[in-house]
């Protein structure tokens, strides 16, 4: 792999930047792999990367039906934080946060991780009590967090309307200074490039159409382009389409797929240097380095695979944002899109073995998967390498919905669902 550096940039400039290596190969698949990962989004690519890097398993293929990072990885609002309430979830997301902190150096690819802090606003007395509980729980888990009052919030975001004249006045917030945003496409590309350099095959535009299962053990997958590809183990990391793949393997998952949408404005001058989220009025906003305001919305209530959201949901979100930031009322919106998120009943992911031997699923990240990308890949790679769930993954088995050991982050995590 050609290392990116200031010196390399200078060297390539002498030949007009025409001799850069392609970022990854586009190989034809082999007949058999040690591990096949279905789904070439951030989580799947991160899994492939850590399988090769940490566990030395490089005979790996990533099968992607579209192009790398073209699903939810390229459609989210790029927020990264780890202030979850329950121990199991907090440990998992904090594991990801620690990997984020060295990720650009690790991948030799600038993922533009910017720790600009995340505010979760409170608008009611109950919000503030929940914030106190959550921040205290975070601190006990070694995760940074502060409880801010209205004045302190106003100091961080001067142009937000923190007056008492709003319908739901801002009473305070939780503040995680280490949280922030990252460049979502770069995360997918960085993981793909680094995994490719270690010998992982990225097989794009190849859809898995069936699973090959013999005596309750998976032995490979059928694809639309290359026929059967054999594998010792298969890991499915396909977000919104997880239920479809589970049905191919003959079981069901406790998931429902919903469209989650986001929208961006025209680029404007720097105005917002942090991330503001509000669970109560339900919206979240940050400003990208390019200058566009990135605004996130709630999911549509109905199941959908359409990768587009409904207009009533946009209206609700924009109402909430304008209540907080009246100054954005004349900003024009540029683009709007939807991604399909696989939501779990307890708003926590599934990292699990399945009723089929050697078939593993990493899914159910719902509305908040991007922040976990490196952690999810790191943990899932360990599960695939060992053939059993790692310590961090154990609480997230799909069988928790049989034994009742749910991790109820719904509403608890400052999650703006």
């Amino acid at each position, binding site marked *: 792999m050609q290392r990116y550096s200031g010196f390399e940039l200078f060297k390539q400039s002498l030949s007009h930047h025409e001799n850069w290596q392609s970022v990854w190969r586009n190989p034809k698949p082999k007949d058999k792999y040690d591990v096949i990962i279905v789904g070439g989004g951030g989580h799947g690519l991160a899994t492939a990367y850590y399988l090769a890097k940490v566990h030395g398993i490089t005979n790996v293929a990533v099968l992607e039906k579209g192009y790398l990072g073209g699903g939810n990885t390229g459609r989210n609002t790029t927020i990264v934080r780890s202030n979850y309430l329950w121990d199991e979830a907090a440990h998992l997301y904090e594991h990801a946060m620690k990997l984020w902190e060295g990720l650009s150096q690790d991948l030799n690819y600038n993922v533009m991780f910017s720790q600009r802090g995340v505010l979760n606003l409170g608008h009611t007395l109950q919000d503030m009590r929940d914030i106190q509980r959550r921040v205290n729980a975070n601190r006990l888990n070694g995760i940074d967090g502060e409880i801010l009052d209205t004045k302190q919030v106003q100091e961080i975001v001067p142009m937000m309307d923190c007056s008492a004249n709003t319908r739901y006045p801002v009473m305070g917030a939780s503040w995680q200074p280490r949280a922030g945003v990252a460049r979502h496409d770069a995360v997918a590309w960085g993981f793909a490039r680094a995994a490719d350099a270690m010998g992982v095959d990225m097989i794009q535009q190849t859809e898995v159409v069936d699973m090959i299962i013999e005596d309750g053990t998976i032995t490979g997958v059928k694809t639309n382009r290359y026929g059967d590809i054999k594998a010792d183990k298969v890991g499915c990391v396909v977000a919104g*389409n997880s*239920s*479809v793949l589970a*049905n191919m393997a003959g079981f*069901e*998952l*406790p*998931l*429902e*797929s919903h469209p989650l949408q986001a929208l961006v404005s025209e680029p404007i001058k720097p105005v917002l240097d942090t991330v503001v989220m509000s669970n109560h009025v339900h919206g979240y906003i940050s400003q990208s380095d390019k200058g566009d305001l990135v605004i996130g919305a709630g999911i*549509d*209530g*109905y*199941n*959908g*695979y*359409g990768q587009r959201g*409904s*207009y*009533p949901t946009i209206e609700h979100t924009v109402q909430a944002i304008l209540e907080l930031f009246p100054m954005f009322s004349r900003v024009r919106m540029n683009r709007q899109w939807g991604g399909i998120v*696989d939501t779990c*009943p307890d708003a926590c992911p599934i990292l699990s073995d399945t009723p089929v031997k050697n078939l593993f699923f990493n899914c159910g990240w719902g509305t908040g998967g991007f922040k976990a990308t490196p952690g999810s890949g790191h943990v899932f790679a360990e599960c695939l390498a060992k053939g059993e769930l790692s310590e961090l993954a154990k609480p997230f088995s799909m069988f928790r*919905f*049989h*034994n*009742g050991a749910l991790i109820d982050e719904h509403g608890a995590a400052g999650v703006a669902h």
Partner: protein
Amino acid sequence: MLHIFCPHCAEYREEEEFHAKGQAHIPRPLDPEALSDKEWGEYLYFRKNPRGIHHELWVHAAGCRKFFNMTRDTVTYEIHETYKIGEKPTVTAQS
């Protein structure tokens, strides 16, 4: 914006008057005490999540406030039919 025909009001109304309530036709087990943990968990949490024809429960929350069922395509979002609780769908994935 979905335009939804409420079978109780017998007219089309806009999506905002309604709430989706998930998969339809889930009968409550007649003898919950007799179920294994697995069966009870599947009744509570495991849902059909098809890519295509889906039967789902809706409520006309800002209208008559009654529940009804809908057959809808989850990819195109086309609504094939709405029908009252207790009735059977005429459009199914097999037909």
